[in-house]
């Protein structure tokens, strides 16, 4: 990164910030969601299906696995929290893709919209998409499986926030790759997060992983969150060490994602990609 690039990014950040512009872009994504019920249904569909599949699996394992029997909701809680991260990342990536699909970047960035305001609107939309997708699935689980993720209590808020922030960081990194490689890299938006799933130890403890992969796992905020979740469910303790490790890693992921995204945006301006990018 050159000094000129850093200075340019800093100047753009200083040159004024407008919550109204962020709200305008958020409104654009909400209009889009409102215009198509299949899109809204799709947000609800996968979390609900995941919850149903893992709900029945949990019911079966309750009588066949001492691990699950110790805390009946451990798999359901894991699947719902994993979805928070996945939907958080998708919320950023898909809203970003909407602009590429509609070839709208040229109009957006001749307006006074700053790139970081766009990032914040993508993040805000990600929260909306996660709430639409995950909260109904969590509520359905209560009558269907007599399990409420809300019994996790206040730690749930911490787990939710930590996974969501990790999702934003990943979403921004994927956005940067899309800015660099265009729609040819579109499938990354749906696939990239699964690369991290094995090391995130969503359904099993990190100790199950091969030794070398455990080092990778401890570099992921998600692995700390899921270990923390199991500690709450099995031992009834909130592990501050995992909380602080996840929070620190989240800060790194988000800062790295934001920086890479803004650099990719600047590179797109150098290559003239903002006008050309699209279907």
């Amino acid at each position, binding site marked *: 990164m050159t000094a000129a690039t850093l200075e340019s990014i800093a*100047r*753009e950040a200083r*040159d*004024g910030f*407008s919550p*109204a*512009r962020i*709200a*305008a*872009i958020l*409104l*654009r994504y909400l*209009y*889009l969601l409102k*215009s*198509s019920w299949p899109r809204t249904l799709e947000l609800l569909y996968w979390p609900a299906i995941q919850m149903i599949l893992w709900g029945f699996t949990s019911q079966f394992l309750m009588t066949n696995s001492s691990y699950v029997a110790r805390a009946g909701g451990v798999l359901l809680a894991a699947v719902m929290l994993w979805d928070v991260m996945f939907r958080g990342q998708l919320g950023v990536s898909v809203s970003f893709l*909407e602009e590429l699909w*509609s*070839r*709208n970047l*040229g*109009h*957006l*960035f*001749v*307006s*006074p*919209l*700053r790139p970081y305001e766009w990032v914040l609107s993508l993040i805000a939309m990600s929260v909306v998409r996660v709430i639409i997708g995950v909260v109904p699935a969590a509520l359905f689980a209560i009558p269907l499986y007599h399990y409420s993720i809300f019994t996790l209590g206040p730690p749930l808020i911490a787990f939710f926030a930590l996974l969501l922030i990790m999702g934003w960081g990943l979403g921004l990194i994927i956005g940067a790759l899309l800015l660099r490689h265009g729609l040819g890299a579109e499938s990354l938006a749906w696939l990239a997060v699964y690369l991290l799933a094995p090391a995130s130890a969503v359904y099993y403890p990190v100790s199950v992983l091969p030794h070398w992969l455990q080092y990778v796992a401890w570099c992921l905020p998600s692995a700390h969150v899921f270990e923390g979740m199991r500690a709450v469910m099995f031992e009834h303790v909130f592990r501050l060490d995992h909380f602080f490790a996840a929070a620190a890693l989240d800060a790194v992921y988000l800062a790295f994602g934001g920086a890479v995204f803004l650099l990719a945006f*600047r590179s797109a*301006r*150098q*290559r*003239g990609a*903002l*006008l050309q990018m*699209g279907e």
Partner: protein
Amino acid sequence: MIEVGALRKRFGDTLAVDGIDFAVARGATAALLGGNGAGKTTTLSMLLGLLLPSSGRIRIFGEDMLRHRYRVLPRMNFSSPYVDLPHRLTVRQNLTVYGRLYGLASLSERIDSLAADLQIVEFLDRQTGKLSAGQKTRVALAKALLNEPELLLLDEPTASLDPDTGDWVRSYLEAYQRASGATILLASHNMGEVERLCTDVMVMRRGRIVDSGSPSSLIERYGRDTLEQVFLDIARAGDGGAQRVAAQ
């Protein structure tokens, strides 16, 4: 209003814009004229801040566009048939989003007024992607005029329009320019359009401005009857030929 100096843009081995200098005065309607690949759209993109120059200077409203583009962007706008508005949003939704991006007060009234002027009232609540080319052009123009820009940049504003709609758009732009005193810079292949609308013309070829002047002065200098004939002379004269042809 616009001052460009030694502006250059290189993409790999290709020099898309090769050290051009020009100025456009406040209230003028100017055109960048040239064939495909001449560098018109690249130049407009750099003026808009969508594309970073390899080197050179751009000052708009006296501000350095490369350092302070956010002081400039609220006072200008842009329309191009090659940059879409989101298809799934209705026309009103698109105009609302862009109006909010520009921080417009009384946005509903502004949209209604523009819709009446540009005759788009009947499809304000239709999805933008379902409009005809002519309707989309008028909607794009409405978006470009939302913030009552002092500087309007237009990339081929009547491309792919039928003659009647093209004429309507040109008349509207003339009326807007007269009423607002705005400066307009357009890139076009349409010589008739440029002859009718523009006070200044810069002819580009291979990234350079090879000649410039008012349409009438260019026609006179080249001893031709129309700007199209001048354009053909320049296009066929080859590198460095424009001045030679003009001098003959």
